[in-house]
């Protein structure tokens, strides 16, 4: 076993009746990274994650987490991982501090509750009932519960689904903090922006199969190398100048607005160079880079939001 690999998933399969939720899924998560399993709803993200957590048993294949078998060594593993489940609830009338205190009591060793609540911005809510918390506060409480045993690996399933953009950003900062403390984070999301912002590496899953695994930037480079530069200028003959750039593959023009499409890292530099060389007056300059969203579209032929 490679000691740098915290999670190893080898050809697992899980079916519910005729529905195959995970099919020949393999990937590995390295120590200290934020690894994202990304794909649309129903792609098999949660099923795969729950197999890794030991909550479900795969029909076939092998999983090792911290060198342990999630099903066979479940007791030992539970002490070393922290889990946040998708759409989980707590007792409606449990108080925030009671939940943290109870979770602490379940583990032989646990970190202090008060600093944890303070760090997650829940300290002034410590006496509030669970049912009175906002969506963002509930998720922060679930993060607190996932951290209470000072785990080596933290599992976060659709952590920010249903949150407003501001709460979402706050949660992203918290996830970065978790990694800064030396923990490995394994998360799922159907939000491509979240994956790009948070993850060191992502595995794209669709219809229960892994399509590709790599850092977001590498996936974009590999599958969507095209980039676009938008330049607005009333310089005569600008379009022809731009067409002469070797890395440009197409130039579209609407009035003074030019969209220069091309591939490779030199395109943007080449465009700037051309503008400067011909002393073009420029009123707008913008680069449009492909995102994971475009990668997903290229790999599966459909939008992730559909």
């Amino acid at each position, binding site marked *: 076993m490679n000691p740098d690999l915290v999670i190893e998933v080898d050809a697992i399969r899980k079916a519910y009746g005729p529905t195959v939720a995970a099919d020949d899924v393999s990937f590995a998560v390295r120590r200290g990274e934020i690894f994202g399993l990304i794909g649309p709803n129903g792609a098999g993200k949660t099923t795969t994650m729950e197999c890794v957590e030991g909550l479900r048993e795969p029909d076939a294949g092998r999983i090792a987490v911290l060198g342990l078998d999630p099903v066979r060594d479940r007791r030992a593993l539970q002490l070393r991982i922290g889990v946040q489940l998708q759409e989980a609830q707590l007792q409606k*009338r*449990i108080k925030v501090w009671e939940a943290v205190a109870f979770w602490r009591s379940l583990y032989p060793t646990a970190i202090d509750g008060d600093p944890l609540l303070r760090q997650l911005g829940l300290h002034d809510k410590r006496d509030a009932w669970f049912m009175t918390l906002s969506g963002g506060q509930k998720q922060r409480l679930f993060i607190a519960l996932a951290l209470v045993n000072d785990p080596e690996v933290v599992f976060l399933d659709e952590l920010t689904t249903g949150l407003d953009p501001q709460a979402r950003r706050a949660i992203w900062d918290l996830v970065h903090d978790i990694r800064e403390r030396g923990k490995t984070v394994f998360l799922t999301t159907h939000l491509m922006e979240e994956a790009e912002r948070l993850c060191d590496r992502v595995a794209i899953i669709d219809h229960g199969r892994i399509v590709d695994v790599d850092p977001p930037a590498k996936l974009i480079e590999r599958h969507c190398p095209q980039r676009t530069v938008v330049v607005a200028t009333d310089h005569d003959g600008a379009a022809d100048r731009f067409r002469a750039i070797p890395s440009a593959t197409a130039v579209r023009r609407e009035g003074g607005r030019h969209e220069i499409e091309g591939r490779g890292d030199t395109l943007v530099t080449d465009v700037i160079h051309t503008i400067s060389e011909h002393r073009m007056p420029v009123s707008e300059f913008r680069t449009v880079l492909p995102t994971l969203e475009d990668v997903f579209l290229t790999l599966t032929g459909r939008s992730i939001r559909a």
Partner: protein
Amino acid sequence: MRAMLRHLLHLTLLEIKIFVREPLGVFGSLAVPVLLFLVVGRIAIGSANDSDTREAAPGDIEFLRTDLPVFVAVMIALSAVLSLVTIIGIYREGGILKRLRATPVRPPTILLAHVLVKLIFTAAALGLMLLAGRRFYPVGVDAPLAAFTAALVLTTWSILSIGFVIASLVPTARFAQPLGALLLYPMIPLSGLFTPVETLPPALAAVARFLPLTYAVSLLRGIWSGNPWSAHAGDIAALVLVFVLATAVASRVFRWE
């Protein structure tokens, strides 16, 4: 084992606190049985005093002395079961059971904690009922209270195991309470509480012999009237058998999510 007991203690105390915060929790499990006992008792005493002889009719006295306390005790046990079925439904639907399964707490500990909470409230409701009874009309003063409490706890424990089977069957928490009531309440008229089982039509009497509540009523009534435990070995055996069977079924069909 020590960890399990510690988890059980923590969870039981926590669930008691949470249950007390439910708007209908304490009212339903403590106040309703006591009020039922007092109101029905008052009506019975009233009708007894209205009779021409100014002497309470023997039937009314018998009702006050034995039937009413046993009836209310049975209601306490059944409402505990319904409450448990509802709670399990809510916990399952809300993913609370699943979330707890991802911690070192062992699944049976979660269920056992809820059983303990129900038994504690059952005993408390019974205690209040008896206190209220002493205060307002002196019946059942001579009943063996400790033994009766033990009998009620045994009865509740046994019927709670049926509750787990029901909790496994209900599709959603919304159906838990009505479905539980539909399965449990029809047992009351057949249980010998109001009409002795022997006087029921043969077909119904045969059905009654398969109902755990029949044995529960027989045990509760006997202990209340001062019978020794040994006189009810059959009832106890039946209740234990129900517990064993229902627990075996529930452990197979129980769903955590």
